């Protein structure tokens, strides 16, 4: 089928669909809302404007400016999760991590601050409150959602028990709570079982809050209830850093099972722990839209993908990227999501243009702050072997220091530009 014929086919197919919508046959959507059709162009729709999705939208436009790209992201600002733990320690403000989407708009990405309500793989459409959006290829970067129901009492308390695991208003609220806590108060942080977004993130947070408390509230302590049997990432480096923080009471294999805000206590399988300030990071799974679209596996948690194209193994023409994916030997990090955004965009452009797909592997560079001046890092390089992503090497910084912290700052400057600039 030639390009022209294929486009003709798309138009015909969409017209038939529009007729069905007008007849009220699909969802009762009024015909005036109708559906937005590609205007003779090929269209890629991207769901989610975080590290993966924003990058993917930008790189599809770089790869082929003739492709129409629509990015669906309800939030008006991109707020970086990496570096947001510094806000909790009063070392950064949230504005310094917040960026608008003008950069993507300048590149011709149609950024729409709307929620994708549903995906219809059979008809290649995304449902919005305002109607339908058809696609030739869909890139889903849904991030994570929380499994509130796994902690008793949490579904009813999810507005007041803070996770601060999606940088934004909760980050600022938690910072205020920590600052307002009296000296001698107890801060309790709970770490969810793997897999969750940003493996070293809870431990960076523990380090920075411990640094803040040591400097500002020396009689306070920080109790860590970790569902995992040990520190999940950069284990030895965090252990070394924590020698400076005797205010940390780290308890491994302590999964939180319940929370009671009236008595200000959390319950683990063995224990009850009182708190003054609580940061409960709930168990996680892929963002809701991925679950609803049938992109998750038998566990109903994560999405398995082709390691070269990031196409879902469950649905054709749909790519899934970022923290929602599983089966690759990569951490759920912003750097990896950014790389997946590029690789999926390059693959989508190639597939839409009937060109060969290149074999490209991601990388992971992940810095963690352990004090106001020092950081540590883990770096992973990968290759494609037998159609799968395979790790070449993982390396850690030998010790914490200010030089690594300076490179962490450099990394944010470069990668934020790459994602959103």
């Amino acid at each position, binding site marked *: 089928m030639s390009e022209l014929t294929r486009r003709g086919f798309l138009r015909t197919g969409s017209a038939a669909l529009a007729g069905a919508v007008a007849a009220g046959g699909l969802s009762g959507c009024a015909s005036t809302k109708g559906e937005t059709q590609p205007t003779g162009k090929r269209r890629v729709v991207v769901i989610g404007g975080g590290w993966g999705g924003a990058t993917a939208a930008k790189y599809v436009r770089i790869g082929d400016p003739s492709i129409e790209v629509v990015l669906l992201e309800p939030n008006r600002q991109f707020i970086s999760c990496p570096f947001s733990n510094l806000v909790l320690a009063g070392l950064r403000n949230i504005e310094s991590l917040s960026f608008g989407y003008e950069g993507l708009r300048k590149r011709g990405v149609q950024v729409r601050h709307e929620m994708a309500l549903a995906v219809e793989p059979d008809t290649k459409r995304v449902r919005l409150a305002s109607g339908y959006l058809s696609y030739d290829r869909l890139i889903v970067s849904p991030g994570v959602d929380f499994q509130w129901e796994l902690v008793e009492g949490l579904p009813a308390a999810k507005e007041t028990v803070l996770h601060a695991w999606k940088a934004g208003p909760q980050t600022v609220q938690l910072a205020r709570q920590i600052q307002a806590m009296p000296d001698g108060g107890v801060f309790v942080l709970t770490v969810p079982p793997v897999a969750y977004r940003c493996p070293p993130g809870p431990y960076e947070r523990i380090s920075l809050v411990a640094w803040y408390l040591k400097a500002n509230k020396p009689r306070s302590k920080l109790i860590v209830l970790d569902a995992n049997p040990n520190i999940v990432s950069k284990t030895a480096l965090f252990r070394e850093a924590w020698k400076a923080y005797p205010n940390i009471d780290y308890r491994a294999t302590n999964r939180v099972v319940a929370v009671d805000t009236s008595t200000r206590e959390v319950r683990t399988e063995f224990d009850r722990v009182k708190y003054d300030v609580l940061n409960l990071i709930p168990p996680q799974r892929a963002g809701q839209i991925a679950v609803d679209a049938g992109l998750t596996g038998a566990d109903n948690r994560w999405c398995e993908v082709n390691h070269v194209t990031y196409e879902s193994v469950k649905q054709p023409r749909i790519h899934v990227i970022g923290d929602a994916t599983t089966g690759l030997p990569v951490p759920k990090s912003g750097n990896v999501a950014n790389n997946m955004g590029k690789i999926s965009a*390059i693959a989508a452009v190639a597939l839409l243009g009937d060109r060969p797909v290149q074999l*490209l592997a991601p990388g992971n560079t992940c810095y963690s702050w352990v004090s106001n001046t020092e950081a540590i890092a883990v*770096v992973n390089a990968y290759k494609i072997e037998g159609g799968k992503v395979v790790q070449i090497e993982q390396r850690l910084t030998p010790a914490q220091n200010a030089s690594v912290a300076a*490179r962490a700052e*450099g990394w944010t*400057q*470069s*990668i934020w530009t790459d994602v959103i600039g």
Partner: protein
Amino acid sequence: MSTIRRLAVVVLAGFAIVLPAAPARAQGPASAPGPFDSPLAKVITCAACHGVNGNSRSDAMPIIAGMDAAYFKKQVQAYAGGARPSPEMGPYSKQILDIGVDEVAAFFAGQRMEPTPVKVDPAAVERGRVAAAACVACHGPAGKADPAKRTPALAGQAPGYLRDQIRLFKQDARNPGEAALAAVKAVMKTVPDERIPDIAAYYSSLR
């Protein structure tokens, strides 16, 4: 058959073998090659630290745009072999070798280097100018690259990166024991630690 076309066929053939479950592609003529049917696709992991096309804008991460290809390749090999210890470039150098170091080196050599926007203290620059007198023998008065001497461009490089590298040379932690670098390290040993940021500021200020 052009080289690009032939490469494409080879890649596609490999793809078909290793990925039998790969999605079927529509039949018909392929579209014209785009920007990513080039080495640009191979450098996607570099931008996270080194910026757009290798032009890092930060203090600590080096600018690699416009870097001499032979110098670039030597550094990648030094990182991979451990002569240049780096937690970041140790793993990534091996990824570059897997992808094809010559193509990656040629890509960055072909990019226009944009000098660092990081501002340095004019007084530090002035102190650095005096302290750098001994550096001129190899790096010239302008700090430009000299492929014949295998010296990289220092002019306009990120000051924090230059500072870190001078320290590594002084400590003999970069390419220890390499005869070709004995002279530079001997010079660095004569530089007091407090002058190191000044020399870095001076070279980063050159255009």
